[in-house]
């Protein structure tokens, strides 16, 4: 039973649970067994909550038997990135400094998941303090990509990506400051949604860079992401960055109809310096939507030429402000890679930071103008495929390039603009997953989820699963 249920999506499991033909207790036990079985291979978990999860599953089962089914995520076992606070539980941020940190409150997203009846199976490994994309963590060990255990899962939410791809968590949440939901989603062959900035509360989530941070779903399917966003979205008085915009019924919007949809394609930035295999898959993905009635329009956004600089200056400055005291007093307890980034973030001047904000405003205006003519912008999520663990360089059409600079090139602009961006798997290159990114107008998650859904229905992965689920 174990393998059979853990490979199912929430959308497949929920009706079975609602009809009482699948017990949340059996499902939770299967996920926990599988998580323990695959832990040595992936190292996705930091901590597994077996006892508590079994108790929560029993409670969910009791409620459902008594006719109190709460909805799609009731009785679904899920683990979250270990940067999201659970009341009275250790949240480590995968760091040495916070290894014993216990929050006295639940993050707003955790509160919402508990209200939805989700069963918590544990906390997932990540890049230390979410400040990196390899998940090669010096304190908790490297996370391995379930498609090829020698490769990185991407990051910083790499534990979430690996766990969902391996079936050791049915779905998960990640955080995204420069691409940390979409990067591991692309690398692990799952769906990842960075919602609009302000759509989902960050209260109770340790910050990396205040103005760029987001919380969002990482799931097996687009429908699961729609259901999870529905569960966690909404205004929160405890988070001054949330915006009071009504939450849509994202599942109802999944019609799969993309007729007359206008797809924007920006060649000079988003298709420049891309692995040829990745480019081929993404262009084929666009064609699949065109085959369903969509049209393509070329678009230009001149300010994108400054996006990498603005993203780096903003994220480095904000992260180094948050960790300034750590750098002054506990530098030796930081991983070498993030210590270097914190040092680098001490260097930009106030003028640099504020110029980056001016660029950011121009980017927002350029994107807004583009969305007057198109419904969605489609790009590769990453210009390269996942590299070997420990390798700081990626192969880009035979050239060795810096990994971190290249990996965030296509994801970073959506953090600067705050626009929603979805990564959906679009095929395999040399056995490794490739993601296609859909960027939409502010608060139009329903639209990009529907486009992702239409695309997913064309079966771009040809039914292939990660090695650990075969």
């Amino acid at each position, binding site marked *: 039973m174990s393998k059979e249920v853990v490979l199912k999506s929430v959308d497949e499991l929920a009706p079975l649970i609602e009809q009482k033909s699948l017990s949340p207790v059996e499902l939770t036990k299967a996920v926990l067994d599988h998580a323990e079985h695959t832990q040595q291979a992936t190292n996705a978990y930091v901590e597994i909550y077996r006892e508590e999860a079994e108790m929560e599953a029993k409670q969910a089962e009791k409620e459902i038997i008594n006719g109190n089914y709460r909805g799609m995520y009731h009785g679904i076992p899920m683990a979250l990135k270990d940067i999201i606070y659970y009341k009275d539980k250790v949240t480590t941020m995968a760091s040495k400094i916070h290894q014993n940190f216990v929050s006295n409150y639940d993050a707003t997203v955790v509160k919402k998941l508990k209200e939805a009846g989700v069963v918590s199976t544990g906390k997932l490994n990540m890049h230390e303090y979410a400040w990196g994309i390899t998940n090669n963590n010096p304190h908790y060990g490297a996370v391995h990509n379930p498609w090829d255990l020698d490769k990185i899962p991407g990051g910083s939410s790499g534990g979430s990506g690996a766990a969902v791809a391996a079936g050791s968590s049915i779905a998960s949440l990640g955080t995204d400051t420069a691409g940390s939901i979409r990067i591991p989603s692309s690398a692990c062959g799952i769906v990842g949604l960075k919602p609009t900035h302000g759509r989902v509360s960050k209260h109770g989530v340790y910050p990396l860079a205040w*103005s760029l941070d987001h919380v969002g779903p990482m799931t097996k399917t687009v429908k699961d992401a729609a259901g999870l966003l529905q569960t966690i979205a909404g205004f929160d*008085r405890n988070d*001054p960055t949330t915006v*009071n915009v009504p939450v849509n019924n994202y599942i109802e919007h999944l019609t799969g109809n993309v007729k007359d949809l206008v797809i924007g394609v920006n060649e000079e930035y988003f298709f420049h310096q891309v692995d040829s295999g990745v480019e081929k898959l993404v262009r084929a993905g666009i064609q699949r939507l065109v085959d369903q009635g969509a049209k393509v329009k070329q678009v230009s956004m001149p300010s994108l*030429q*400054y996006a*990498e*600089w603005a993203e*780096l*200056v903003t994220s480095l400055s904000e992260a180094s402000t948050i960790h300034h005291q750590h*750098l*002054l007093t506990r*530098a030796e307890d930081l991983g070498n890679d993030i*210590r*270097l980034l914190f*040092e*680098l973030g*001490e*260097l*930009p001047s106030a003028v640099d930071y*504020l*110029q980056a*904000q*001016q*660029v*950011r*405003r*121009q980017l*927002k205006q350029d994107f807004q103008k583009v969305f007057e003519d198109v419904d969605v912008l489609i790009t590769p999520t990453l210009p390269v495929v996942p590299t070997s663990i420990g390798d700081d360089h990626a192969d880009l059409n035979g050239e060795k390039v810096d990994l971190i*600079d290249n990996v965030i090139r296509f994801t970073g602009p959506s953090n600067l603009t705050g626009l929603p961006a979805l990564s959906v798997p679009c095929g395999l290159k040399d056995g490794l997953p490739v993601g296609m990114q859909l960027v939409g107008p502010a608060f139009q998650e329903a639209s990009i989820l529907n486009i992702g859904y239409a695309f997913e229905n064309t079966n771009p992965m040809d039914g292939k699963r990660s090695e650990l689920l075969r």
Partner: protein
Amino acid sequence: MPLSVRQLLEDKGVPVKEEHLETLNNRWKEMHALRGNLESANLDEANISLTNTPGGDHIE
């Protein structure tokens, strides 16, 4: 004369890790190169993503 990376960090009390200095210098130069022609980009002086909202964080 511009301050060195070492001076900039030491001025802020940041303990400098010797083996990081060369990498920091290189990365700082790379970041500077990413600015490209920003100085001639005609950034609008009123065009900034910072706001000052009176009356608290939320206006409903």
